[in-house]
């Protein structure tokens, strides 16, 4: 009979201990990004003033991340949550946000940034899942376009300056340095791939439209008959036919998708599969620009 009271009382005591703990005076801004590319960009902007964690690995499909309680812990302590948005994380992030008990990083909170609000979105308005696992607000794979990634970086820098005005200059400088490096790299990438404007490519998932938009590639087919539906024999046969008719030689896909079908199609078309991690391997010190560099290298090789 007395046990519930004891429990409530001990909870109250422990809660009070929490109250008494002073917060460190000049801590880093703790940033949590849903995907590694955003984590990398945020780190470049914030430098030593921030600590950054990503909720997913580059080898993970960001549509299907497990809402592990360990991620709740990261969000509970975060000052800023940066998301890709456009329902990419809808299957796991909202549950983590609620469990985090952190008002800052709730949607609408001061420490929540949906990067998609800073870019121009493609393919918005798909609201019928008869078309597959579509994203009603638009295609969320915009980080393959460095121009859009640059806009996103600006939004992150602005958000950091608003959250931590004392270090606003650091963030502005961090952004300027990143933008310069990105623009320089982009000019190089564009020059290397300029010859392939209009080149037909096949992709696994509909995740490369922003890349095609940036480089002027012609995306002629996807191996998935519809987003989220695995390739079927009849559809793959159709893709090979289309690929042959359009002269496509390259199959683009993230490394987290199975590559057997892609290899088969590429073989039939006399081309190659370009298989890439879904983001920068930040754990190994790789940056967003490094990741894009790798992408352009492989793409240039395959398109040759």
């Amino acid at each position, binding site marked *: 009979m007395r046990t*519930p009271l004891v429990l*409530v009382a001990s909870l109250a005591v422990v809660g009070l201990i929490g109250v008494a703990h002073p917060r460190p005076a000049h801590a880093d801004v703790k940033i949590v990004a849903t995907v590694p590319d955003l984590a990398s960009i945020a780190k470049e902007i914030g430098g030593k003033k921030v600590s950054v964690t990503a909720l*997913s690995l580059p080898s993970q499909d960001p549509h299907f991340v497990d*809402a592990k309680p360990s991620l709740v*812990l990261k969000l509970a302590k975060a000052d800023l949550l940066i998301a890709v948005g456009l329902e990419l994380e809808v299957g796991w992030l909202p*549950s983590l946000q609620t469990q985090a008990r952190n*008002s800052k990083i709730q949607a609408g909170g001061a420490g929540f940034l949906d990067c998609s609000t800073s870019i121009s979105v493609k393919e918005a308005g798909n609201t019928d899942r008869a078309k597959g696992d579509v994203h009603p607000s638009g295609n969320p794979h915009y980080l393959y376009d460095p121009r859009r990634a640059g806009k996103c970086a600006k939004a992150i820098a602005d958000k950091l300056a608003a959250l931590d*005005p004392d270090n606003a200059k650091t963030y502005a400088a961090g952004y300027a340095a990143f933008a310069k490096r990105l623009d320089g790299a982009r000019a190089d990438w564009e020059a290397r791939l300029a010859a392939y404007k209009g080149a037909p490519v096949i992709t696994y998932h509909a995740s490369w439209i922003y890349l095609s938009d940036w480089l002027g590639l012609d995306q002629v087919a996807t191996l998935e008959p519809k987003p*989220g539906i695995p390739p079927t024999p009849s559809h793959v046969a159709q893709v090979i036919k289309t690929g042959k008719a359009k002269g496509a030689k390259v199959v683009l896909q993230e490394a987290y*998708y199975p590559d057997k079908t892609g290899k088969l199609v590429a073989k039939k078309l006399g081309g190659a599969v370009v298989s890439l991690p879904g983001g920068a391997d930040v754990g190994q010190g790789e940056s967003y620009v490094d990741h894009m560099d790798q992408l352009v290298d492989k793409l240039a090789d395959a398109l040759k």
Partner: protein
Amino acid sequence: MALVAVAAPLTAHAQPTPAPPPPPAPAGAAAAPADDATAPADDAAPPPGDAPEDAAAPDGDAADDDEDLSDIEAALADDAAAAEDARPAPPQGGLAGAAAALNPDLSFIADVAAAWFWGDDPMQTGDHDPQVNGFTLQQVEMSIAKSVDPYFRFDANIVFKDDGAEVEEAYATTLAMPHALQVRAGKFLTRFGRLNATHPHTWDFVDQPLAFGRVFGGEGNRGAGAELSWLTPLPWYTEVLVSVTDPHGEGTARSFLGASDRALDTPLDVQTTAAAHQFFDLNDDWSLLWGLSWATAPNPSGDATRTHVVGADLYVKWRPITRASFQQVALQTEWLLRRRQQPAGTITDLDTYAQLTWRFAQRWGVGGRWEYGGAPAFTGATVVDDLDPDWTEARQRATAQLTFWPTEFSRLRAQASVDRPAWRDPVWATFLSMEFAVGAHGAHKF
């Protein structure tokens, strides 16, 4: 009460650093937010509670924060009063689209099954289980979810069946309580163990485990009440919670007051549930979640008789995320020890299930489950378990299932089981079930 307590510290913490750099003296600091905060009232913009959106200062000086706090709180209280007078009339016209965007996220999930039993009088214990030969509409669940305001979100699950509709859950969850606390209030499934708080569409098998049907009832343990949970500051995930809920309900609290209409004599007659959960990332691919739970409430057999249920749950999952793979393997087991005081003694029984599921391809998975419902042990003069008078010996059930997911919004399942109660002939059962989800269904927990 709770709202006031929550709102004050939140607003105060967020306020000290408005857009211009913080003024040097405390007096000046108090003046600046006051000016800022009057603006919303004049502009007829959001009430002062929204101010944190523009000004959060994670890097602010802690000492200054504390000094400024009382001044700021006073200023905000004045402004809140002013805003009350100056509250604008709602804008009119041209808002159809915007208003629609304020609609809650709505989703429907339908579960239908075809069943065939071999053996007399199948003893399925779940209310959503197929119970008879032929077709069963297990449920149509409507889920509603939306942020209420910056402090609460609202979730509800309304279930439609052939015999009517029921509000299974409708509760608010706090989003902005300090010190990693969270309150849920309304009507909800208690977080006893792992499976109890979840809905059939997240279950790996078509039917509810016997353990929950026997101990809590065919609907799982739920009721109107309130829950306080705390995410401890330990470096690994540790959450503790305590909830108080209505101990009535034949299908939701059968070992407690159940179908009895006995009123609560003291506040301690509510059902009290306490639980602790811990999670460990063993590495990127392996996860372990375990918990201990305890629930207690009076039972109607005597004047001061109570039922205690103690539970332990374990969930171990392997899902490779460091390389391309669709594979997932999960082991899940829960153990419930129930002790019911009777006027002349006690009845004790142990109920458990253990299941292993393997998703071996993007769209395919298999699973096996073993269940055990122990024989009731009597002390004292008690000789009859009035909830399940026939359940005098141990009962075991073995189940296997094969699942096909066309997409993550649909699921087809075939399941076969053999139920072996030691006191009667076994029952074989086969189910084919289909599940469809439409709408904006929320994210699930791990």
